[in-house]
């Protein structure tokens, strides 16, 4: 019914789209300037064009499994081997926008395909955001696969309960900072947490992609295939995002994570936590006598994560002072531009959240439409069969034929809706992606405010140190010949002041550094968001138009076939 006539078209369609993609790849070298397409273009040029026909499989893969025999979607297999045409392909002669449906934006999806050893389901969808690496020929391609259960080697309290999952992390790159062009390591989720924490420390002020959630679930769930698969996908997304960040992709932490075999040689967060405990041990000494110096090198980290509890308390006090006293703190956030941008980010986040929700509803509605249309088609097919089998009168056969036309069209239209929807999901995913990115923005802004707080605290401290020194000097000067103990104290104070001054300078430098990072990142975010959103809109619109046209053609045919009735009805 539907299959036979379309075999040829399906192959032609694949070829057409492949050609289309080729021409797109070749035509746009000039886009390097705004960097939107360069990265992905090159990737698609690099990866074999045989992959391109996978593009067609993407939508099918995303379609829900059909129980009805006639709607068995062409499987992955069918598309990899274009010579095996699917039974029930639905492609009609490609109307004008059919080719354009596979727009430049969708090329980004090509580089998803290599992660093929993972069961490719729709959750695989794209991190197809534009990134602008410095040179168009740089690439890092990371794949997460092959989850395996492993045993905890160290002695545990409960024997046999400490199994965990490791993942194979494969990297392909041509960037020179790495040792080689292809390598793999095995990592567990804890390692990823470590990586993420270390990056957060080293790259304050940057929009660092947020890592996947920890998911505190019981060990039984941990082992379940679905959970493991979800996590695998999430890890892959995360690492790929890191790899597309222009600064972080060059970080030592990432390099180490991706390359060093065996145990991950980064300090774990538990080490940091135990440092906190050391800090608690130090606290009494600090309170009751020994100098309360903040070492300059420590101020480059926020008080919160560190070992210095006293510093933590001081900064806390300072922030309360800032809030309550209402007087302008010594160094205030004066950058009006920044405050404005911050406000904009907040608005943007709200609207993104809203749009993201509505996008989900839209996708659901489109899916339902496709489903119901398909069910309607099936019902008419059954009716057709029934009338034909039971036909006594010719009018029944005529009716059966009419129904068949409608049924065929409905089933085709249903398939188009589902394909359209798979594309829509990918495009509108951009909204979800940027919503997720807002977390990074929050992180970067809070780096800034905590750095500022450190500066403010040090300045307050300095001022109180100075006033103590003054008082001592005043008191000491009243005693003729000097007050030995007081003089000693003044000397000590002066020393403290000196060190604190150094710390203040370091803290200010750090603060300025973070401010600069914020600024460049905001610029980058605006630029990339602009491009990605534009692509999203274009892709969305193209798809909608293209598939609507296909659907229109399907129904126009039926209208034509039933046009005799139109004349009769007037």
């Amino acid at each position, binding site marked *: 019914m539907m299959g036979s006539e379309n075999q040829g078209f399906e192959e032609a369609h694949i070829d057409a789209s492949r050609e289309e993609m080729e021409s797109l790849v070749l035509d746009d070298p000039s886009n390097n300037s705004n960097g*939107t397409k360069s990265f992905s273009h090159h990737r698609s040029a690099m990866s074999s064009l045989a992959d391109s026909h996978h593009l067609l499989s993407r939508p099918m893969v995303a379609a829900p499994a059909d129980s009805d025999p006639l709607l068995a979607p062409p499987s992955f297999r069918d598309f990899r081997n274009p010579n095996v045409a699917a039974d029930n392909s639905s492609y009609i002669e490609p109307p004008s*926008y059919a080719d354009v449906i596979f727009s430049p934006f969708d090329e980004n999806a090509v580089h998803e395909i290599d992660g093929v050893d993972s069961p490719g389901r729709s959750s695989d969808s794209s991190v197809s955001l534009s990134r602008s690496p410095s040179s168009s020929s740089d690439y890092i391609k990371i794949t997460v696969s092959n989850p395996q259960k492993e045993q905890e080697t160290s002695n545990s309290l409960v024997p046999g309960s400490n199994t965990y999952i490791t993942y194979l992390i494969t990297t392909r790159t041509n960037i020179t900072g790495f040792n080689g062009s292809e390598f793999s390591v095995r990592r567990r989720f804890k390692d990823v947490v470590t990586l993420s924490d270390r990056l957060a420390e080293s790259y304050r002020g940057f929009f660092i992609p947020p890592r996947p959630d920890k998911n505190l679930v019981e060990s039984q769930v941990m082992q379940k295939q679905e959970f493991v698969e979800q996590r695998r996908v999430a890890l892959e997304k995360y690492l790929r995002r890191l790899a597309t960040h222009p600064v972080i992709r060059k970080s030592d932490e990432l390099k180490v994570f991706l390359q060093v075999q065996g145990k991950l040689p980064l300090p774990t967060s538990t080490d940091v936590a135990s440092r906190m405990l050391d800090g608690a041990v130090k606290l009494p000494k600090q309170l009751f006598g020994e100098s309360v110096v903040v070492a300059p090198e420590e101020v480059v980290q926020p008080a919160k994560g560190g070992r210095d509890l006293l510093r933590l308390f001081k900064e806390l006090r300072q922030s309360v002072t800032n809030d309550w006293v209402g007087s302008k703190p010594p160094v205030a956030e004066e950058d009006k531009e920044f405050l404005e941008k911050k406000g*904009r980010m907040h608005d*943007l986040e709200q*609207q993104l959240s*809203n*749009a993201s*929700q*509505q*996008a989900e*509803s*839209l996708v*659901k*509605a*489109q899916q339902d*439409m496709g489903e*119901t*249309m398909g*069910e*309607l088609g099936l*019902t008419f097919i*059954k009716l057709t069969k*029934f009338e034909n089998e*039971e036909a006594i*009168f010719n*009018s*029944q056969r*005529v*009716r059966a034929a*009419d*129904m068949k*036309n*409608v049924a065929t069209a409905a089933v085709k*239209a249903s398939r188009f809706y589902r394909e359209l929807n798979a594309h829509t999901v990918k495009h509108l995913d951009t909204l979800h992606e940027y919503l997720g990115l807002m977390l990074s923005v929050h992180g970067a802004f809070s780096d800034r405010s905590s750095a500022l707080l450190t500066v403010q605290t040090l300045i307050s401290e300095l001022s109180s140190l100075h006033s103590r020194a003054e008082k001592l000097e005043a008191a000491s000067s009243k005693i003729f010949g000097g007050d030995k103990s007081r003089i000693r104290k003044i000397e000590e104070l002066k020393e403290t002041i000196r060190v604190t001054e150094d710390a203040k300078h370091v803290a200010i430098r750090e603060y300025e550094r973070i401010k600069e990072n914020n600024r460049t990142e905001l610029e980058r975010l605006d630029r990339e968001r*602009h491009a990605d*959103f*534009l692509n999203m*809109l*274009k892709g969305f*619109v*193209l798809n*909608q*138009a*293209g598939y*609507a*046209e296909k*659907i*229109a*053609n399907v*129904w*126009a045919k039926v*209208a034509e*076939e*039933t*046009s*005799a*009735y*139109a004349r*009769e*009805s007037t």
Partner: protein
Amino acid sequence: MITAQRSSSGSSHSPRSPSSQPYLSISVTDPVKLGNGVQAYISYRVITKTNFPEYQGPEKIVIRRYSDFVWLRDRLFEKYKGVFIPPLPEKSAVEKFRFSAEFIELRRQALDVFVNRIALHHELQQSEDLRTFLQADEETMERLRSQETGIFKKKPADLMQIFKEVQTKVSDVVLGKEKPVEESNPEYEKLKNYIFELENHLSEAQKHAYRLVKRHRELGQSLSDFGKAVKLLGACEGDALGKAFSDLGAKAETLSVRLQKEAHQLLMNFEEPLKDYVRAVQSIKQATIAERANAFRHQCELAETIKLKEINLDKLMLTRSDKVGEAELEYRELKLESEEATRRFENIVRLMNEEMVRFQDQKTLDMGIAFHEFAKGQARLANNIADAWRSLLPKLEACSS
């Protein structure tokens, strides 16, 4: 407005000159809500145009309500056994829906189709009850309506009871459960099975058609919400991108309206005809088939009774009883009754066969029209959607360059 099932109402009866071609063309229009509160109801204007000599004049306008149509259907059902009386739309919907514009329009359309089908049926159009319905003044109509205690006039609870009885009777009879009387006609068996299965298939189709209407509405709604959200997002972005978002949002809202419109069309021109088809098949199943079974059983019972009477008569004649005369009289009367019953049954059989042919033809036509409208509507909708989205492309292209 498209009335999908008008089929060729009036088309072959256009009044070129008054007496050239006989025509009877009716329209049910102008629904108006009358009365208050619980007793509120809808009245319709029924306009008849005809050159049939039995009618009072070329045009007549009367006011009728739903129960008047029910009266007509019941009368026809009584008088024309074997004929497939056209189905009526359902009695009452969910309370709050009863006066919605959509429901009223659907009902009006269905009533119009109902009465025109009667007018086009070569036997039913001769009916005196039809004439009464189309011409009598409102008081007369009301009087007649309240007298009628037809099967369909009962209260819902009674109706359910009777329905169940009829159903069991029908299924018993049709499935041959009631042992003694059953037509052993293989062709008829086939027909009955066909009707039963057809109802199932059609109900399913109608159900999906209704869902499809809902899906259109839902898609429209979500496009509207999406459009609004996108516009707000555009306001955040500002400059060319913001404008692009804003345009897209506006387009989405436009398409939302378009989808709602199409949902309505789909309801009126596709789902309703399917529903009508289901009703018709149900009517054949519950009424006509049941009638035939009754008639057959009656005929059989009479035949049985006559046999007994014959035996009795012979006995009486042999014994030269003085009851012979009486018995002979009875016998003759019974004989007449039996012949009448047989005639009635055979008439039903004949009619059913004729009706079946006509029904199949009509349904092919009705469905053909419905399919055509459906396909046209979907094609038009899809084209509108394609055009709307396409119109955004130039601006989007301009943005990125």
